[in-house]
């Protein structure tokens, strides 16, 4: 079952536009993640696909059928909600069976499907418990079992892991991924967490400011972000974005706010640029006052690496990830250098595809 969105628009009233011109095709069996900061309209988009929120403009198509006017139940899909939407007065088993009973399925069929689904999420032993007697992760699994039991081939998930603690989130991430692969579900997954998007998705859609910023595989999104917003959204710690321009003397040299120069093996465009440097692409070393171009503010030791926060002489703040443990004192002068592994953006933030060579270097 594939899902096609064509120029989807959503207004809440005449003046507040929430989403604009969203188009994408989600292929059968794909793990598709919609990601963006809170308030970007990603949940609204999911609810429009589900049929819970009316569509203002454009078309939602499932396989060959336009479903804009169909009620949710006619769309043959399931949905896992952020708060799981479990019925507190029903046991685990009955929660999973709820939709099947509502559709008046044969009771032997219901039993088989529910038992199977509970087995698949390893909840068979807890089938008689009420939701309040379950831990967060177990509740999450009940919600998953409900999706499994329904037999629908499209599953929508709205921030399903956001109510879990960090450790559980990693575990459930793996379980959801395994389940999706095993059942061959077409899964549309909404999250604000770039790590979830990067680790699970076949394709990612980045939403921001009412618009689709980029659609691509995780590696495309990371390596060739469409703009500085996408570049900043993926990767921790965040990418450093600094103003830069062509050196006056040499068009192969990039001058980064007079703090440092980077030699490229191709000409630099004449316009004013912004460059993106991932924190581990900077190098940092002690220097005396003459050769230094930055001052250390503080360092954070994380075990296998250290994040160094520094202020360039021009006043730009940067952060650099250094392997292992390094000991810089605060206010210690340092020299920061960068490789040519850079991302280039124009003044509007759109990425400039400078040169293949630059990437080859990297």
């Amino acid at each position, binding site marked *: 079952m594939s899902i096609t969105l064509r120029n989807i628009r959503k207004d809440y009233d005449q003046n507040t536009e929430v989403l604009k011109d969203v188009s994408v095709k989600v292929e059968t069996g794909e793990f598709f993640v919609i990601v963006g900061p809170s308030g970007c309209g990603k949940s609204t988009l999911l609810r429009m696909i589900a*049929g*819970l*929120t*009316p*569509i203002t403009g454009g078309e939602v198509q499932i396989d060959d059928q336009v479903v*804009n*006017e*169909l*009620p*949710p139940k006619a769309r043959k899909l399931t949905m896992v909600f952020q708060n799981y939407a479990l019925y507190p007065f029903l046991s685990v088993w009955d929660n999973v069976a709820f939709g099947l009973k509502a559709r008046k399925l044969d009771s032997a069929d219901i039993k088989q499907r529910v038992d199977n689904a509970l087995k698949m999420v390893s909840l068979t032993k807890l089938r008689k418990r009420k939701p309040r007697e379950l831990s967060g992760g177990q509740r999450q699994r009940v919600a998953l079992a409900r999706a499994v039991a329904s037999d629908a081939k499209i599953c929508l998930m709205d921030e399903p892991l956001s109510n879990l603690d960090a450790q559980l989130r990693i575990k459930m991430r793996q379980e959801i991924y395994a389940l999706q692969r095993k059942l061959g579900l077409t899964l549309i997954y909404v999250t604000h967490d770039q790590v979830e998007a990067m680790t699970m998705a076949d394709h990612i859609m980045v939403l921001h400011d009412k618009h689709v910023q980029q659609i691509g595989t995780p590696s495309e999104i990371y390596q060739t972000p469409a703009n500085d917003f996408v570049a900043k959204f993926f990767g921790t710690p965040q990418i450093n974005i600094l103003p830069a321009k062509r050196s006056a003397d040499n068009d192969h040299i990039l001058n980064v706010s007079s703090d440092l120069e980077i030699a490229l093996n191709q000409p630099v465009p004449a316009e004013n640029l912004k460059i993106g440097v991932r924190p581990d692409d900077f190098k940092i070393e002690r220097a005396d006052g003459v050769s230094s171009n930055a001052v250390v503010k503080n360092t954070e030791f994380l075990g296998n690496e250290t994040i160094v926060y520094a202020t360039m002489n021009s006043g730009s703040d940067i952060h650099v990830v250094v392997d292992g443990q390094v000991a810089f004192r605060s206010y210690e002068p340092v020299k920061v250098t960068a490789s040519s592994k850079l991302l280039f953006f124009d003044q509007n933030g759109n990425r400039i595809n400078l040169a293949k060579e630059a990437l080859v270097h990297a």
Partner: protein
Amino acid sequence: MNIVAKPKLSHTILNYILLIVLAAVVLGPFLIGLWTSFLPTMDIAKGNFLSLHLSLQNYIDAFTQTPIIRYLGNSLFISVATMIAQLIFCSMSAYAFVFLKFKYRNFLFGLFLATMMLPFEAEIIPNFTTVKALGLLNTYSVMIIPFLTSAFGTFMLRQSFLQMPAELKEAADIEGLGHFQFYWKIALPYNKISLLTLGAYSFLGAWNQYLWPMLTTFSNAYRPVQNGLRQLQSEETFNDWGMIQATAAIVVIPTLIVLFVGQHYFKSGMNEGAVK
């Protein structure tokens, strides 16, 4: 609750029709009463319900020929006094049950709870004897004193006080606030919503008293409005339907206005009491 992609127009219209019908059923008695209050009794008696002789004469008669204003005033005074007293005494006893430690506390609280099971209606005989012996018959006091406090109010405010964060009391202890200061400056303001609810509840309770005032008042000087209306019906105005409806309208309209204005507070408060 009924969420679909696009609710069908016919469905929406059907919902509105149903709502209007339900509203008509609920409001019917009001509307009939209000309508007849503008009609001359002659027309009502002749069954001329759709008469167009509308006038305010019934209201003028009600104000000038009956002590309805006096009744309303009596009720207002009794209800406000009862409300204030209950707010003070119920909150004080609730405070004792939550913030004070003393012997027999649980026993006493159990006694309070037990009184909620005892209907006042079943105790009118000795109570009548008591107020008679105290010389309270036919006074305002007789309708206020037995209701100065209530077990229900105490129970409700106790639940509310219990939900205050313990840190508030601890912080007050550290700053050296005494019990009276903590009660007055922190406990009461913190539980405003519950107090508001209890206030409304006790006011309405006093306003709607019927049996007790009927037993203990005999003159229009002290008679509250519920019994006053009964008095009017049993007097010579027995068949003057127009005027009787006017008196009912005079009594109900202010309450409705207060209710509609205060509904927002009332609803949230009641649900807190009932559901939480």
